[in-house]
């Protein structure tokens, strides 16, 4: 046997590894370098995306913490002296604010404010400040029998001055009031219980939150049954024919249609049928339901597909009818997957703004909606409306509202992940 003929090694080459010439080594180093670079580019891309996310959330968080505070002026009101009267029944009645207004509560508040804060300070008390007093009285009617301290929202000019912005005169006033212990930025729990207002110190998200809940309820009640039933039909019963194809194509198209198109549909169809329900949660919910339904159908079909055929065969073999097979066996097994898809679809609907903009859910709603047909707004819309405000005080409030919205979304997505992990079966 002849030894294999080796190529001649050049001077620098290792005789035992004859292919590793200097040129080769150079080329290899270059290839490894490009490998490393490629990998680094990939890492950089991921790092960039994560950094943007962190920056976005951090930005909202830092601004938003300020949004959960407000500038408050402390006013002491001596009710027995003021002549404002009431008993526990009249003060906790739903129209107590009107009764107190007729008794002159706004003037009483203004009087004590002027006595304690001076004319300049009282002028910077928010016009709606007396409503907070009325709300406090409704909560605790015994206050009316004694002297009590109230922290009332300051005007937005004074609030800005407290943070070192605005005209010097106002800043001096703010400093004087702070020195007197009359003005402070306090934690504002009322942000979660009040509704929209014109003064950023007096706004809250409860009105928008309630509107969101009513809208989402309508969406859920409509989209969930329709979505689940059509997923069942398409996956389990539908004959393979033209009609089924048309249904499938329209569902996959609807899932990809821009959300604003659903707003056009709501405007042209729903509002044409119910013209006086503009900006009602009912119409908003119907529009969002049409948008959410395809998502539920698609995830529902995947959940049904994951149920093994042996379950169906077993049920059929012991004499169950096709409807019994599906409703007694397939549906319960597919339910966790369907619920996960539903929650994800609902989370998407929760953050949706564009279609609701077109059907008029952008009204200024100062009182929480009290039904499915009363004018309402939703949380993302509130964010949009506040972001358009010129008053600087709204910037922090907007971020705070965004935090509330993100908390809801995170909770929903967390629930979906929990459901998926807890109930997901591997067959």
């Amino acid at each position: 046997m002849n030894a294999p003929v080796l190529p001649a090694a050049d001077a620098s080459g290792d005789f035992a590894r004859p292919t590793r010439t200097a040129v080769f080594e150079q080329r290899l180093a270059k290839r490894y370098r490009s490998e490393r670079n490629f990998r680094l580019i990939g890492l950089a891309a991921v790092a960039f995306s994560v950094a943007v996310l962190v920056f976005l959330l951090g930005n909202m968080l830092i601004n938003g913490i300020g949004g959960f505070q407000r500038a408050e002026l402390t006013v002491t009101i001596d009710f027995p002296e003021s002549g404002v009267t009431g008993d526990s029944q009249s003060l906790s009645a739903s129209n107590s604010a009107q009764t107190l207004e007729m008794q002159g509560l706004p003037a009483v508040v203004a009087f004590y404010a002027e006595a304690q804060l001076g004319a300049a300070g009282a002028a910077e008390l928010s016009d709606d400040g007396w409503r907070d007093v009325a709300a406090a009285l409704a909560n605790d009617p015994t206050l009316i029998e004694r002297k009590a301290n109230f922290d009332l929202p300051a005007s937005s000019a004074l609030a800005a001055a407290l943070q070192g912005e605005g005209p010097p005169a106002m800043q001096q006033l703010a400093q004087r009031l702070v020195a007197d212990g009359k003005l402070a930025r306090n934690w504002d729990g009322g942000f979660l219980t009040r509704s929209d207002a014109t003064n950023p110190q007096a706004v809250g998200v409860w009105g928008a939150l309630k509107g969101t809940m009513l809208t989402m309820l309508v969406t859920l009640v409509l989209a969930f049954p329709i979505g689940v039933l059509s997923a069942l039909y398409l996956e389990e019963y539908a004959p393979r024919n033209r009609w089924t194809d048309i249904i499938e194509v329209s569902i996959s198209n609807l899932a990809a249609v821009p959300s604003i198109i659903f707003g056009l549909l709501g405007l042209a169809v729903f509002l044409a049928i119910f013209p006086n329900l503009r900006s009602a949660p009912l119409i908003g919910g119907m529009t969002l339901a049409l948008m959410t339904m395809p998502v539920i159908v698609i995830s529902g079909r995947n959940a049904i597909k994951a149920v093994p055929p042996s379950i169906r065969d077993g049920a059929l073999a012991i004499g169950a009818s096709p409807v019994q097979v599906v409703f007694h066996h397939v549906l319960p097994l597919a339910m966790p997957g369907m619920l996960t898809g539903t929650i994800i679809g609902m989370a998407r609907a929760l953050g949706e703004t564009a279609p609701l903009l077109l059907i008029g859910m952008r009204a200024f709603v100062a009182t929480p909606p009290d039904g499915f047909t009363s004018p309402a707004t939703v949380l993302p819309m509130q964010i949009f409306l506040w972001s358009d405000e010129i008053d600087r005080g709204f910037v922090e409030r907007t971020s705070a509202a965004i935090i509330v919205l993100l908390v809801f979304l995170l909770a929903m997505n967390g629930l979906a992940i929990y459901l998926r992990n807890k109930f997901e079966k591997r067959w």
Partner: protein
Amino acid sequence: MSPITLILIAIGLGLIGWLAGRAKAWSFKSSGPELRTSSRPVYHAWYVALWVAIPVLAFAVLWTVIAPQLIMQSVLATPAAQALPPFGFEREAFINEARAVATGQASAVFNAEAEGLVAPFRDAIGRYNLIGIVVTVLVALVCGAFAFLRLRPDFSARTKVERTVMTVLLLASLVAILTTLGIFGSLVFETVRFFSFVSPAEFLFGTKWGPDTIVAPEAIDPSRYGAVPLFWGTLFIGAIIAMIVAIPLGLMSAVYLTQYADPRVRAWIKPLLELLAGVPTVVYGYFAALTLAPIIRNAAVAVGITGASTESALAAGIVMGVMIIPFVSSMADDAMAAVPGAMRDGSLAMGATKSETIRRVLFPAALPGIVAGIMLAVSRAIGETMIVVMAASPAANLTANPLEPMSTVTVQIVKLLTGEQSTDHPATLSAFALGFVLFMVTLGLNFVALRVVKRFREAYE
């Protein structure tokens, strides 16, 4: 009566029917132990319940439509109504006020003229509520009795109930078709009306956009309805700037996460990236308008570019691109996962490095899938609304400078439809025409992309 009350009544009556049907079916059992019923008692129960609930619901729908008109008629027939002003806004206002007081929504009337109408309204509402309830119960009784009397041991209630269930399933799946038809129909209808004012050629190829909302519909200037600047703005923001951001970042993220990253790292990073897709668009819009746009403008001014706008296309496009990253990344992920492992292994076995394998084997093989994913991403970007409404400009502008303000189709739709203008004005109708174009373009992109994905999957199976 509110619709919710009627639905509750229907459910209540249905429950009574259900219990009655089941009781009767049980009585068959007790009449003879050897007697075999055709269906289990629960199906008899459902049969009666459906026969009660469906007619009652049908009547409820009918009643909520006609009852207000009946009430109105009887109120207008009263002497108090003769005193109303004959036509117009005041008449409506008085009627609405009286109705609100009568139904308890308001505590007192504002206009004294409405006072006289309150009592007739209250009477009429009470009377028709009573009639509604009586007829509802009658309908329930008649239908329920019919179904109840049909129950026999050999009556196949199950087949009947299951047939109803199948009908309900079919109806549910038809909602999707109805929605598609509704979208298509309403868009086409309004677009055709718009084209009676402005010719399609002028709309599609005109280069000046500035609808004159205050001019009378007959006097509009059709040359102000040229949508090319909007199409360009939409493409420039959604398909160019956003994709310049999203494609490299999305692709490389997918490559790093699927080919290089440690599985434990991936388990953490992937949900984080998906979080980026879950952030509501209004939050992105807020971020683009209040944080990024001023930064970009100041940077542009600092390097000496004058005329940079805070409503620049760049801010909206970049933020939109960031929003799309997870979408591109997951589409690329799917496409590369569909490439057979043997191709990758073969390349690695020949001594290619990982990056060479990815660039020379995986990418070309997955290209159709990646392209389809990018098409879907573009279709999502051009339909995106809130980011551009908040960060881009309402003024249409035909330019290639990303620092100048630019408008998009969706911005104009929102702008034209959120005012208080009449629904018949061409400016309002033009929003529907824009919506129609948007709908057709996204539909086309999705259709082609889904075809490509399907064919691409088949090629490797």
